[in-house]
């Protein structure tokens, strides 16, 4: 009786959400695949060209370099993100004085808009008017001063750093939750056996958090493959294409060159690569599930 009555609500309850999803996500997603198999002329007509767009991608140096930059951003970002995030979460798990205060400052950038953070850092990086170079000079480290965003050698790392600075609070919060769920008796046993804090972190805590770390790494890959706003606002892909990622290239190709089919093909390749990479990471880092 109950089951039968409940069945009547399935469609009306699901319909509004599903309609939105179908209209603004599923339909554009399928259309993207469709578009990638077509060619647009300047007059706006569409002709089916099969896999031509994909073949074009293979020989396109701009796409190759944007793909390289996307991977670089993912790797540099992971290196900039995970060691500090783990250290901060570890520090916060020690019940320090002023914990709430520290948490506030670590997490605060997360709630700020990407636009504000990008503009702010664009100025902080400014060679003469900003904060970083003059501070370095003030500390007698003038040799380290650079035109951070204007130099192809540093621009990508500088932009990546800002996106890490902005989002690190999320990762710290998730890691903190992981640390909190660790069984205290195991950690106490290790302490009683005389293990140092560092040893406990590397030999017990991190191995027990392997599952969480794997999930966070996959999340980072998904997120950094979509990098757009930071780059668009801070460098616009420059200097000399050194920060051009697939996301910004796609946007430029679609709106500056009106080449929607080609942009769509880039998008499809990006999604496929991302899913493959996520799958591989999941497989490679898979451990036996721990129960605790």
């Amino acid at each position, binding site marked *: *009786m*109950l089951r039968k009555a*409940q069945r009547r*609500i*399935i469609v009306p309850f*699901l319909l*509004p*959400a*599903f309609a*939105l*999803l179908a*209209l*603004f*996500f599923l339909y*554009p*997603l399928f*259309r*993207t695949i469709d578009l990638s198999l077509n060619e647009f002329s300047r007059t706006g007509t569409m002709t089916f060209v099969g896999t031509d767009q994909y073949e074009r991608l293979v020989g396109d140096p701009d796409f190759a370099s944007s793909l390289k930059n996307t991977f670089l951003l993912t790797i540099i970002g992971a290196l900039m993100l995970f060691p500090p995030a783990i250290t*901060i979460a570890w*520090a916060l798990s*020690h*019940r*320090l004085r002023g914990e*709430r205060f*520290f*948490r506030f*400052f*670590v*997490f*605060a950038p997360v*709630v*700020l*808009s*990407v*636009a*504000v953070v990008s*503009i702010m850092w*664009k*100025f*902080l990086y400014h060679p003469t008017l900003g*904060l970083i170079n*003059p*501070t370095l000079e*003030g500390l007698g480290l003038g040799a380290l001063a650079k035109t951070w965003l204007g130099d192809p050698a540093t621009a990508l790392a500088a932009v990546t750093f800002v996106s890490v600075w902005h989002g690190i609070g*999320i990762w710290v*919060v*998730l890691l903190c939750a*992981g640390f*909190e769920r660790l069984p*205290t008796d195991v950690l106490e046993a290790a*302490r009683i056996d005389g293990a140092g804090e560092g040893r406990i972190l590397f030999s017990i805590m991190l191995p027990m958090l392997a599952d*969480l770390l794997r999930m966070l790494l996959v999340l980072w890959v998904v997120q950094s493959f979509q990098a*757009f706003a930071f780059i*668009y606002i801070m460098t616009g892909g420059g200097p000399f294409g050194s920060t051009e990622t697939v996301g910004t290239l*796609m946007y430029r190709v679609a709106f500056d060159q009106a080449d929607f089919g080609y*942009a*769509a093909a880039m*998008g*499809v390749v990006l*999604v496929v690569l991302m899913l493959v990479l996520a799958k591989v990471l999941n497989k490679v880092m898979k451990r036996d599930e721990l129960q605790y």
Partner: protein
Amino acid sequence: MTNSSTDVIQKDAPMSPPPAVEEPVQRRKRRRRGSTEPRAPFRTYHLFFYLLLGSIVVSTASAFAWVFNVSMKTNREFLATSPWELAEGWRWENYANAWSGANIGAYFGNSLVVTLTATAVGVAVSVVAAYPLARVQFRFSGVVLAVFLMGLMIPWMVTFAPLYNLMQDFGLLDSRIGLILVYATYNLPFNVFVLTGFMKTLPYELEEAAAIDGASPTRTFFSVILPLMGPGVASVAIISFLQNWNEFFYALLLIHTPEKMTLPLGLFQLGQAANYGTNWVTLFAGMMMTVVPVLLAFALLQKQITKGLTVGALKG
């Protein structure tokens, strides 16, 4: 088992005390943030933690202090003085200029309307959809849920070109309603994910009891289930609000007229203009005005926001 192992220890080292006896073994239970438990006693290695966290606080705070300081300067001061030099006077007129002259006030209003509506629509629609997905058995429920959750893995931005054309066809391009619908949809996967997980933790006897009392499933949902969803709904509402408030890409894609721009897009435009013009201090005042309310709200809601995040991402 325990006996034999302590025997071994005692036989091996009968005289040496166990290393960690300088303080009684702390039986710390699962910690809850914000509890009134006493802080751990200071140990030497804590110094490293304090230095690390302290440097984060100092660098973040000085970045904001710098923005505030510049927002109090004149353009000439900004160009001529060193970045560390304090502003000569309190130039609150920069804020007035940003608010009305540079349209920050209008952007603020747009952001508020778009964000609040989109969040309300997204949460309402997903809490209703989560109910059958979590509590009613039907044939393709797993598939439907998977379709919703697919949105958590697929990068949404790759679909921007067809979305742009679709909005154009519907006449929703460059309109706040279009942006609201897109934001509400964009929130769905995360909302559904959190809310179904949350609903599954409720006991199934609730529906049975309600059915025996003669309540229809719709009535059961609204009078029994929904009132219990408070924390879950608050969680997704706060996270959606933050996301929508700060969203940049879709605003850039879909909105073109300055009068309809949201705050992030408006600030971006102002930033572009400052690159060519000379009106830096107004931009800095604008940044301060967008940053301060959000930070104040965060200071008040810190616990709910961080908790909402972990509810979604971790089980339990």
